[in-house]
C-alpha cells in the first residue's frame, strides 16, 4: 500500500514539466522517500535473506550431507596404541611326581622360584602346578602314563606336562621330550630330590633350565611381536639380539597371513607329456594328512590337485649346464621368475581363505638333473605363496614311467610339509609337534589381536582424514563387535585360555577388516561438492547477484545516512 503511494507521489511531478524535460532535468529531484517505504524495502531484503539463510542453506546442507555414523574414536585409538590391553601369556605346566604330596609341593616351589629367576620376560610366565595323579610309591612307567594321559587330555590349556621318573642307573638328571605329545620326561636319581630343609636342589634347577630352554623360541617370538606394536610396552618386552630379530623378521615375512581356512593346491607340471599321472591321493593320505590333522584346532584345509602337461617354466629363465656336476643349474635370480604365471593355471581356489600352491616340476630328460646353482638343492619356498620342488627323473627309470608312484613322491611330499610349516609360521623348535602347535596358537592369537587393533586405529585415522566419505551404521556395529571381541580375547589370554583367545581374536580381526573395507564408504569420494555447485550454478548465480547487490546498496545508503546525520 505504502509502496504504491510512494510511486504515485513520485510520478506526479513528472506530468507537468514533461514538455521541456531535457532542460529542467538537472534541477528536478525525487521527493524524499517516506520512512514507511524505506522500512518496507529493508524488510523485503531482510526477509529474502532470512529465507535463504534459515531455510535454503539448511535444506541444502541437509540434502547433500553424508551420513557418518558415530564411531568410538577414542576407544579405537586406545586399542591401536595398545593402551587397553596388556597381553600376558601365563602358561600352565603340570608336574607329575611319584613322591608324597608334601615333597612334591616343595620341589614345585623350588622349581618355580628358579624358573622366575631365569625369566626376563614378565608377560610370558610359566606357572607350575601339581597334577593330581595317584600317588604310587613304586611307580612303574605304565601306571604313571595312564594316570597322566587322562588328566592332561581334559585340559587343553595345560601347555606341557613334566613327568618325573625315578631311575637308578644312568646319568641323572636327564630329560626326554616326547615328539608327538606335550610331555617332558625327567629322570632323576633318588638323592636329587630336595629335602624339606634345603632350599634349591639340583633337580629343581635342572627342571627350570630345561623348561626355560623349551620355551625360549616362543618367548622370542612373542617378545618380537610385542616390540613391533606401539604403546607403553618397552619395559615388558625382553631384549633380543639383532640377529634373532632379523631371523624372526625374515620368518614372519615368509609366513602367510592368518586365515581360518587354507586351500592347498598340489600341481604337477612338466614341459613334456610324461609323467601324465601321479598317485597323489595315497601320497597325500600317507605324508600330509597326519600333519594337517594335528593342526585342525587352528586351521582347516581343503586340498586339490592337478596335472598339467606341456607346461614349461617361464621361457626367460635359462638354466646353464654345469660341466663339473653334470647338471643344469638355475641361478638364484631365476628362482623368482620360475613360476610361469602366464601359462600355469594356478588361479586361487574359490571360497574364503588364501590358496597355498605346491608345485612339483618334473623337467624334461634332456634338461635333467635341474638344480639350484648356489646350493645344489632342488626346492625353494615362495614367501606367502607356496613352494616349488623340482623332481628330477632318476636314471633307473629310463623307461619313462607315465605314473609317479607314492614312493617316488615321498621326498617331494616331505619337502612340501616342511614348506607348509614355515608358511604357516610354525616355530622351528622344540622338537615336539604339539608344543610347537600350541606355541603357534599363542603367537597367532597375539598377532591377530595386534592386527585387529591396528586396523581399528587405521579406521579411526581414515574417519578423521576423509570427512567426505560416508560411514554407514554397519561400520559402527562392526567396530563395536571388534572391540568387544578384542576385550574377550585379551581376557582369555590373561587367563591362559589360548584357544578361546584365538577364537575371539579371529572374530575381532574379521570384523575389523569388514569395517575397514566396507564398500559403500568409497562411493561418494568421486562426487565432490564442487561438482554439485557447478551443476546448479545457473540457478545460484542469477539468484545470488540481485540479492547481494540489493543488500550492499542498502547497506551503503544506511552508512551514508548515518555519516550524514553524524556530521550534521
Amino acid at each position, binding site marked *: 500500500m505504502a509502496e504504491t503511494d*510512494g*510511486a504515485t507521489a*513520485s*510520478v506526479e*511531478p*513528472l506530468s507537468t*514539466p514533461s514538455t521541456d*524535460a531535457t532542460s*529542467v*532535468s538537472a534541477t*528536478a*529531484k*525525487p521527493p524524499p*522517500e517516506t520512512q514507511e*517505504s524505506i522500512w518496507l*524495502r529493508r524488510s*523485503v*531484503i531482510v526477509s*529474502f535473506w532470512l529465507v535463504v539463510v534459515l531455510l535454503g542453506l539448511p535444506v541444502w546442507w541437509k540434502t547433500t550431507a553424508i551420513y557418518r555414523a558415530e564411531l568410538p574414536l577414542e576407544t579405537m585409538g586406545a586399542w591401536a596404541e595398545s593402551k587397553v590391553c596388556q597381553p600376558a601369556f601365563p602358561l600352565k605346566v603340570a608336574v607329575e611326581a611319584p613322591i608324597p604330596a608334601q615333597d612334591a609341593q616343595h620341589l614345585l616351589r623350588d622349581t618355580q622360584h628358579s624358573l622366575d629367576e631365569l625369566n626376563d620376560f614378565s608377560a610370558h610366565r610359566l606357572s607350575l602346578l601339581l597334577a593330581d595323579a595317584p600317588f604310587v610309591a613304586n611307580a612303574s612307567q605304565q601306571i604313571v602314563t595312564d594316570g597322566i594321559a587322562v588328566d592332561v587330555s581334559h585340559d587343553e590349556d595345560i601347555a606341557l606336562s613334566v613327568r618325573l621318573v625315578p631311575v637308578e642307573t644312568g646319568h641323572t638328571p636327564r630329560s626326554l621330550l616326547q615328539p608327538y605329545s606335550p610331555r617332558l620326561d625327567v629322570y632323576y636319581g633318588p638323592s636329587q630330590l630336595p629335602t624339606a630343609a634345603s632350599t634349591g636342589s639340583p633337580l629343581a634347577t635342572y627342571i627350570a633350565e630345561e623348561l626355560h630352554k623349551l620355551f625360549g623360541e616362543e618367548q622370542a617370538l612373542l617378545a618380537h611381536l610385542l616390540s613391533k606394536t606401539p604403546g607403553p610396552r618397552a619395559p615388558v618386552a625382553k631384549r633380543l639380539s639383532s640377529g634373532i630379530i632379523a631371523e624372526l623378521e625374515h620368518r614372519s615375512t615368509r609366513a602367510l597371513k592368518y586365515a581360518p581356512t587354507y586351500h592347498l*593346491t598340489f600341481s604337477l607340471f612338466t614341459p613334456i*607329456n*610324461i609323467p*601324465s*599321472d601321479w598317485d*597323489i*591321493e595315497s601320497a597325500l593320505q600317507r605324508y600330509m594328512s597326519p600333519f594337517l590333522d594335528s593342526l585342525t584346532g587352528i586351521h582347516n584345509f*581343503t*586340498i*586339490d*590337485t*592337478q*596335472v598339467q*602337461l*606341456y*607346461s614349461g617354466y617361464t621361457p626367460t629363465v635359462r638354466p646353464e649346464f654345469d660341466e663339473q656336476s653334470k647338471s643344469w643349474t638355475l641361478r638364484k635370480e631365476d628362482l623368482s621368475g620360475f613360476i610361469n604365471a602366464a*601359462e600355469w*593355471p594356478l*588361479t586361487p*581356489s*574359490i*571360497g574364503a581363505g588364501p590358496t597355498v600352491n605346491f608345485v612339483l616340476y618334473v623337467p624334461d630328460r634332456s634338461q635333467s638333473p635341474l638344480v639350484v646353482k648356489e646350493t645344489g638343492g632342488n626346492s625353494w619356498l615362495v614367501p606367502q605363496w607356496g613352494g616349488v620342488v623340482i623332481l628330477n627323473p632318476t636314471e633307473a627309470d629310463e623307461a619313462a614311467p607315465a605314473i609317479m608312484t607314492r614312493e617316488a613322491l615321498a621326498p617331494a611330499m616331505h619337502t612340501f610339509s616342511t614348506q607348509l610349516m614355515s608358511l604357516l609360521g610354525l616355530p622351528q623348535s622344540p622338537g615336539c609337534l604339539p608344543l610347537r602347535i600350541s606355541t603357534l596358537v599363542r603367537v597367532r592369537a597375539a598377532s591377530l589381536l595386534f592386527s585387529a587393533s591396528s586396523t581399528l586405529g587405521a579406521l579411526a585415522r581414515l574417519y578423521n582424514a576423509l570427512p567426505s566419505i560416508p560411514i554407514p551404521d554397519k561400520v559402527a556395529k562392526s567396530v563395536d563387535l571388534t572391540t568387544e571381541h578384542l576385550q574377550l580375547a585379551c581376557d582369555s589370554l590373561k587367563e591362559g585360555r589360548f584357544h578361546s583367545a584365538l577364537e575371539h581374536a579371529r572374530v575381532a580381526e574379521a570384523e575389523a577388516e569388514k569395517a575397514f573395507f566396507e564398500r559403500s564408504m568409497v562411493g561418494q569420494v568421486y562426487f565432490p561438492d564442487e561438482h554439485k555447485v557447478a*551443476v*546448479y550454478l*545457473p*540457478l545460484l*548465480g*542469477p*539468484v545470488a547477484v*540481485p*540479492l547481494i547487490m*540489493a543488500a550492499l546498496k542498502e547497506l551503503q545508503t544506511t552508512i551514508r545516512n548515518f555519516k550524514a546525520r553524524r556530521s550534521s
Partner: protein
Amino acid sequence: MLLLLLLSVFNAVIASVAPRSDYHERLLLRPLPQSALLASFNFRSNETSTAFEQQNFRHFPRSLGQILQHAHTKELHLRFSWGRWDADSWGQMPWNGAREGGTGVELWAWVEAGNEEEAFARWLTLTNALSGLFCASLNFVDATNTVRPVMSFRPEGDHTNASRLHLLHGSLPHEVVCTENLTPFLKLLPCKGKAGISSLLSGHKLFDASWQTMSIDVRPVCEKGGECSVEIEQGVDMALDIERSKRPQDNPIPRPLPISEIACDTSKRYNSHDSCFPLATTADPAWSLQDIFGRPLKGACPLTDTSPDLGYSVCINVPQERNITVHPEGQYSESRSTSPELRCYKPPRNTDFDLHLPSQALPTPLTHPTPPLFASRSINGHGQERGSIRAVIRNPSPTSSIEFSYLESLPWFMKPYLHTLRARIVGSPEDPVKEMYYRPAVDRKRGTHLELHMLLPPSSTLILTYDFDKAILRYTEYPPDANRGFDAPPAVIRVLASSETMGREQDRKGIYVRTTSLLLPLPTPDFSMPYNVIILTSTVMALAFGNIFNLLVRRFVGFDEVAGRGGLVGILRAKIQRLK
C-alpha cells in the same frame, strides 16, 4: 540320406570309444560349397566322479571343476558363437545343432538346489565365476535374461537325484567372441595347443571364419555297472573361407588376379584382351592344413589312446577320388574303415603333420544332408513405438511331419502381446500349436519366456507372428552404444520326435536349430538432456526471481528526477553538452 547314416555311424564309433579312453580328440574336415571348409574340433576327457569330488584333477581342468563344485552344477553347456551357418547351401550343422550355439554367448546348466531361490543364487555364482574364467561378460546374465525352459532342453548326463536339479538358461546375444575367450579355452585342454589337433587353433584364423562356435559341455556319465565319471567335451567348429584363409598374413588385402590367370568366358561379345567375364571354377580349390590354419599340426597329443586301431584323430570327409598327399610320408597310418568317403589319419608324435589337397575337378561332388528344419526370424514394422516378430519355419522333408519346441526368451523391454500371436501353416487351416508355455515379463525384473510345442506337416511352411511394444528405458539403463540398438537372443528350436536314423547318443544330445539374433532399435534420448533441463529450468527460475525481487525492492521515480540519469550514456551526453 546315406551320408546322414554315415555321419551317425561315425558318431556312434566315437561314442563307443569314449569310455575306454581318458582323453580323446578328433578333427573333422569337410569341404562345403562355395569354397568353404568345415573344421570341426572335438576334445573329450573323463574324470572319475570320486576323483572329481576329492578335487584330484588329471585331465579335467581344475579351474572349471572347482567352479562347478562351488556352484553345485551337475551339468553345464556353454557356447560362444559368431557368424551365421548358411543352412541353405551348407546343409545340416556338424553336430545337428547339439554343440552349436546361437549368436553371442549361451549358457545353460542343471544346478542342484533345494528350492528356486537357492538355485538362482548358485546360478549367479556360476555365471560370475565363468565370466572370470573365460574373460566374457557372463556376469551380465541376471534375472532379466535367465529363463527356465520346460520343453527345449533335456539333461544329457545320467543324474541320480533329478528332482533337486534346476535348469537355468541364459544368453548374451551382444557378446562378441574373440581371442581372449579362445586363450582360456585352450588352457583347459590337456595338450594346451602344444600338440595334437589343438595346435592348429589360432585366434587369427578362428575369428576370421564365416561362422565359428566354441562349446564346453560337462555331464556326469554312469556306466551300467555303477561306475560314474564326469565327462568334459570341448569343441570348436568353424566354417572357413578357403580363399580368404589362404591369403598370406603379411599381405592380407585381396587383389585381383592378372587377367592372364583368369579363365574367361570367350562366348561373351565384350570379351577382349582387357575385359573378361570369369568362368565359374568347377574344380575344388587346393589347400593344405598349413594354408588354412597358418601352421602345421605339431604331432599327435600323446594322451590319446595309443592302441593300434585308435587314435585316428584327423579325419577328412571328401569324395573317394580326391587326391591327398600326406606329410611327412610314411610316418602316419590311414584308415578308411567306416566309409570310403571318410579318411582318418593317425599323426606321428613330435613331428609336424600336414595334408595337401591339390586343385582337382571332381565328377561327383559331396552331397550335404539337409537339416530337419529351416528357420528364420525377423522384426517387422516401423517407428519407435511398436513392431512385430515374424518367424518362418520350413519342413523340407516330403514324407515325415516334424514335432518341435520353439523357445523364445525376450528381454523385458520388448513386450509381446500374446493375443496377437498367430501361427499358421501356409495353405492349410490346421493349427500347428499343440501346447504353449508363457511367462510374462516383469519390468526390470525378468524377461518374457515363451515356449511353443508345434507340429509341422511334411513339406510345409509355418509362419509365426506376434506384435510387441518397445519400452522406453531409464536414462541410466542405456548402454554406451545405445543408438546401435539392442540384441534379442536367438530362438531355440528343438526337434522333439526322434527320427529312426537318430542314434541313442544323438537322441540324448538332441537336434537343434537356432535362428539368428535380432537387432531391436529402441527410442534413444539425447543423453545431454538432464544437464540441459537443469540449466534451462534454473535460468527460467532465476529470471522469475529477479523480476519479482526487483519489483519489490526498486524505487520508481520520475525520468527527470534521476541524478546522473542514463548511466554511461548520460555521463557521455553531459560531457558533450559541456563541450558545446
